[in-house]
């Protein structure tokens, strides 16, 4: 589609009739409209949208009719607002005109007194004819409204272009795939209400009684299968619940068996405990007996050793005759003769000698006693270790027995705790039997259901087979069957076309966008679009506001450029054709930096068939050098007053 011209009359700040003619030259395809802020650039875009679709996005209070004109109107004066767009679409020239009449009901004030008028004329075969288009369908065909934002956009919205929703739908539309999708939806054999299913419905409506019977049979069987399947689902849930209950009951019973075992063990342990407790007491009495029997010898031992030292130091040695005392000597003297037989009365020397011995015997002599005592000390000391070990062994027995008793008690406690948690046996048994019965019942029922469903499915197959045979043999249905076949083939083909084209479009878009982006952006970045046609840049931003804005602008221009390029190259496949579109931009570079402006500007004339660029002087200074040889027409919006702008050709 190419724009020829736009004529506006009294449209907002464009007072009177004014016109812009767009360059349609293939090489010099750029039309520049210069103007500063509020000069009317955005208003011109609005004129396009109002002219084509009747839409405006004026702010509250803003009017369609030029304010000066309105002010000059006297009561009952009539003025018109007109927008007339001339364009070429598919080789034909169209004039699209929308007008709105205003009547003044009091001086200086007017309002619309009727609905806007809308006409389309086409110039074909040297004839200028009006096209009847009450609903604007023709305009939709030329430039669908949902795509218009991509081709008529202002600089403020540039950042959001590639993030709109329904991008995929828009692209599909643009690429001419919407009719294909419509056909697919229309023919889909799997959906209700489509041509295919409508045809299939016709097959059985022949009035044939055998067929009717069979059809009713099919209905009945399907209903039965549906009911049984629903029941099966419910019963399946029951089965799961009953299985759980059964498993739990079984486990509880098994725990009970363990409980019986543990109770027996506890009885054994109690007997063992009694035995060990008795042993414990015995061992305590043992140590007490040891204390009684050996305590004295153990405790006196150190004293005896000390005493032995004293005795040694005193050195009162034994000179006496062992086991003899002075009474023994008295006895010998009294009887008159010695042990050796010497007559002591006759031998005074012997008598003297023997009397002398009395001095060394107790009670006169203590040597023997000392000797005996020392021997006692030695003997006691030798036995000390043994005596101590006896006591120690008795004590160890106490300790060991106590440990065993503790272990037994622990095990008894453990069993006790376990048994406390065991429920009553009779209840366990009852639960088990109930769970078992329920489980059995549901399994049997499920088995019955399955058999019934299987049988029904078999029967259904058989009846449907019969129906098919009848239908196939019935000439009345031949045509319908052929139509159904045809519809199916067409459907499959369209699906194939759609899928292939969608894939190719996506590939082309990706390739184009990467290519365009790399030329527009002065950094190193990676860009791609996903299946929903959303643009992704796998990068980190520099953090610079200008740079990030620049990135957005470039990203979206790249996206638009991708669309335009594909449309321009007119991908042809299976007679699906798209049309190139112009690009009408209002202040597109307001958020880009100089480098980007330059890069984008250089590229755009190549990606679009026709560019209309509404731009401020400050940005134009960056653009003009790079597009000088592509400029077809230049205009300037000369703002005279707030309410009056003149479009001047330069």
């Amino acid at each position, binding site marked *: 589609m190419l724009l020829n011209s736009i004529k506006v009359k009294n449209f907002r700040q464009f007072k009177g009739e004014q016109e812009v003619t767009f360059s349609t030259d293939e090489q010099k395809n750029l039309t520049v409209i210069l103007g500063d802020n509020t000069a009317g650039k955005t208003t011109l875009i609005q004129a396009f949208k109002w002219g084509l679709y009747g839409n405006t996005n004026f702010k509250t209070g803003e009017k369609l009719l030029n304010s000066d004109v309105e002010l000059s109107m006297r009561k009952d004066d009539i003025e018109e607002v007109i927008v007339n767009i001339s364009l070429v679409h598919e080789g034909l020239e169209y004039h699209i005109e929308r007008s709105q009449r205003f009547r003044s009901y009091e001086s200086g004030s007017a309002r619309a007194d009727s609905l806007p008028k809308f006409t389309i004329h086409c110039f074909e075969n040297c004839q200028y004819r009006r096209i009847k288009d009450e609903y604007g369908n023709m305009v939709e065909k030329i430039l669908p409204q949902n795509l218009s934002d991509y081709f008529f956009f202002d600089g403020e919205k540039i950042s959001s272009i590639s993030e709109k929703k329904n991008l995929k739908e828009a692209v599909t539309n643009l690429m001419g795939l919407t009719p294909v999708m419509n056909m697919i939806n229309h023919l889909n054999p799997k959906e209700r209400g489509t041509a295919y299913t409508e045809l299939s419905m016709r097959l059985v409506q022949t009035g044939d009684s055998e067929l009717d019977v069979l059809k009713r049979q099919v209905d009945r069987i399907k209903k039965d299968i549906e009911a049984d399947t629903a029941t099966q689902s419910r019963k399946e849930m029951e089965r799961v619940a009953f299985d759980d209950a059964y498993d739990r009951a079984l486990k509880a019973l098994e725990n009970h068996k363990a409980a019986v075992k543990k109770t027996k063990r506890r009885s054994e342990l109690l007997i063992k405990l*009694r035995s060990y*407790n*008795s042993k*414990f*007491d015995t061992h*305590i*009495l043992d*140590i*007490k007996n040891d*204390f*009684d029997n050996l*305590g*004295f010898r*153990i*405790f*006196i*031992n*150190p*004293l*005896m*050793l*000390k*005493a*032995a*030292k*004293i*005795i*040694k*130091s*005193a050195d*009162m040695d034994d000179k006496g005759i062992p086991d003899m005392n002075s009474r023994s000597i008295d006895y010998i003297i009294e009887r008159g003769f010695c042990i050796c037989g010497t007559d002591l009365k006759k031998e005074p020397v012997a008598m003297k000698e023997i009397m002398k011995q009395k001095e060394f015997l107790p*009670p006169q002599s*203590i040597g023997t*006693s*000392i000797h005996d*005592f020392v021997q*006692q*000390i*030695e003997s006691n*000391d030798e036995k*000390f270790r043994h005596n*101590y070990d006896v*006591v*120690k062994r*008795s*004590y160890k027995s*106490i300790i060991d027995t*106590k440990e065993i008793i503790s272990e037994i008690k622990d095990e008894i406690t453990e069993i006790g705790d376990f048994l406390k948690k065991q429920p009553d046996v009779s209840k366990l048994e009852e639960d088990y039997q109930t769970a078992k019965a329920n489980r059995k019942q549901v399994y049997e029922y499920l088995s019955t259901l399955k058999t019934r469903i299987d049988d029904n499915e078999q029967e259904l197959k058989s009846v449907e087979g019969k129906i098919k045979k009848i239908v196939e043999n019935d000439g009345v249905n031949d045509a319908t069957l052929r139509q159904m076949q045809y519809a199916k083939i067409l459907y499959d083909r369209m699906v194939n076309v759609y899928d292939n084209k969608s894939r190719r479009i996506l590939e082309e878009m990706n390739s184009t966008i990467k290519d365009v982006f790399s030329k527009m952006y002065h950094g190193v970045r990676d860009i791609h679009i996903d299946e929903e046609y959303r643009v992704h840049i796998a990068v980190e931003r520099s953090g610079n506001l200008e740079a990030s804005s620049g990135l957005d602008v470039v990203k979206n221009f790249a996206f638009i450029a991708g669309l335009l390029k594909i449309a321009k190259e007119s991908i042809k496949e299976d007679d699906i054709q798209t049309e190139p579109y112009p690009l009408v931009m209002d202040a597109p570079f307001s958020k880009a930096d100089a480098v980007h402006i330059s890069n984008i500007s250089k590229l755009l004339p190549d990606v679009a068939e026709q560019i209309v660029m509404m731009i401020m002087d400050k940005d134009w200074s960056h653009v003009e050098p790079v597009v000088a040889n592509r400029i077809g027409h230049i205009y300037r919006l000369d703002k005279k007053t707030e309410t009056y702008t003149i479009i001047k050709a330069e």
Partner: protein
Amino acid sequence: MLSNYSFRGKYASYVSFLTKDWRMENSNDSFRIFSRYIDIYMISAIFGIIYNKTAKYDPEDNQDEYKDFPNAEIRGEMFVKESLKINSVYKVMILISPKLELSENERVDKAFRGTEDDKEMQKLLESYVLGGLIHIHNLFKDVRTAEEASKKMFDIVDQFNNDKKTIPNYQNR
């Protein structure tokens, strides 16, 4: 000593404690720390000498607490029966007691030549008995069960075994 001997007042209460019947937990048997008063007499004397602890009957002791406490009497024949042991204790006491200011020869002479009728020595022995009794009572007074008492007994014996390692052995003189 052939005549009877009685522990009186608080000493009688100690003796009573040390000879009381502890009921065994798991049987009808009973347990006593010391079976006989004479054993207490002899062991107390030993402990009194070892730890150099002496005591006597003091009229100023609080008699009210123990005034109704029966005496613990040891009959004379028990002393006869255990005369060998008592004699050993007596000799040892004379030989090593720091309370006697005697030379070694005098100690030996007195220990082996003297008689047990020596009143001074008897008095000394009694003081050791009473001092040792207090010591033994302190060792056992917190015991509450037969098991605890048996543990205490072993601890005392074990202590003697450990201490023995620090006493020069007679054979090593």
